[in-house]
């Protein structure tokens, strides 16, 4: 437990926030080399910064998803204003949304919609490209690809079939990191798309596609289960 004075705490804060002159910085660093309490406080400040970074993690995907919903979200603040102003604001929103959507698309031309992944899996008769024989191998593979793992509790009706390629190597539904897991539920199939949560794109499948999409967050991963079934059958059996 450190016992720093308010002045010392203030100096650590100034050091972290780069608010020191070159001389002050050099002096502080020489003290740091011999003062364990100062080093400890520096660690605490780094941890605090890490916490703030986690709390305010920016999601470009969320920004895109919100952009699509903007005209509806903008409706209420303009209630009671003149019709001209309301419509000009709405038109402005449409321009902003259009530009945002264009920017999102332009940033990643290799995206394919989730239903395309389903079509590719269907075409391959849901035959996996490879499979993991046991839970440790499954977890190790997930860890190596996405930095975090989970397991799926299989049952008589639920079997993990194996990993498939969502498309060829050029296209993907969420990001280049997306993994595609094929599962068998009774006599049907369910495909789970897995990626880092920061890559999330708030996937949707179009009405009339006959597919349903369910989302779950597991730690820093995001999972989408896709199938014709009217409820999620794989995600409830995911274990961290």
């Amino acid at each position, binding site marked *: 437990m450190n016992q720093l004075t308010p002045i010392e705490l203030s100096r650590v804060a100034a050091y972290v926030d780069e608010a020191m002159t070159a001389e002050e910085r050099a002096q502080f660093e020489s003290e740091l080399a011999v003062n364990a309490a100062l080093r400890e406080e520096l660690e*605490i400040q780094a941890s605090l*910064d890490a916490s703030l970074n986690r709390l305010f993690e920016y999601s470009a995907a969320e920004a895109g998803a919100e952009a699509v919903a903007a005209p509806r979200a903008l409706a209420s603040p303009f209630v009671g204003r003149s019709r001209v102003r309301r419509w000009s604001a709405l038109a402005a929103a449409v321009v902003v949304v259009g530009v945002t959507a264009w920017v999102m698309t332009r940033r990643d031309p290799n995206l394919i919609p989730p239903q395309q992944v389903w079509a590719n899996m269907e075409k391959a008769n849901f035959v996996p490209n490879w499979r993991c024989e046991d839970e440790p191998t499954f977890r190790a593979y997930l860890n190596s690809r996405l930095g975090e793992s989970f397991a799926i509790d299989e049952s008589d009706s639920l079997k993990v079939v194996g990993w498939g390629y969502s498309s060829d190597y050029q296209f993907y539904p969420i990001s280049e990191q997306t993994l595609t897991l094929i599962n068998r539920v009774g006599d049907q199939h369910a495909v789970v798309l897995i990626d880092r949560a920061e890559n999330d794109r708030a996937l949707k499948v179009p009405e009339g596609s006959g597919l349903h999409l369910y989302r779950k967050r597991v730690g820093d991963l995001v999972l989408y289960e896709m199938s014709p079934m009217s409820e999620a059958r794989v995600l409830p059996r995911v274990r961290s």
Partner: protein
Amino acid sequence: MTPEEFARRYEECHRTLWFIAAAILGDKTQAHDVVQEAAAIAMTKLAEFNPATNFTAWMGQIVRYVALNESRTRQRRRSSTAPDALDSVPAGRSAGLATGVSGQLDEHVAAGLMSLDELPRTCLVLRIVHGLAYSEIAAALSIPEGTAMSHVHRSRLALRERLRGREDELRSTLGTGGGAR
């Protein structure tokens, strides 16, 4: 300024505007709504924008205005909610900030942060999370650079003070994958 020029400059500063809104509201999802509402308002006032001035500062002012309005509306809504409903949200907690691997600690940090005044809090977030230089924070918030620096410094110390007694917890979270960028 043409709508195309607006769109280009809006894209350039979008992330800064989002951080301003998120810091004021303590709600990441609502921050997106607020920024878009601000953009829609700005589009109706393009003729009022002086091209010789800072676009981010202009948009930043609108975002702050909309976010503070939204924040006040939420407070009014909360105060008119039945007391029983409030019990489900721990005091000071900001429900709109996701917590991950270090959930409990992050909740305390969020609560401490949200107890700070709006402007110092925004300066701190823009500095630590968004990584802006003091001059950029000053420009985005239309305040002097020295004031931005002072807000960051004092906010950090105040937040640290609010987390007194949680030093072990803070140290133990280092290396859990949520390190500073």
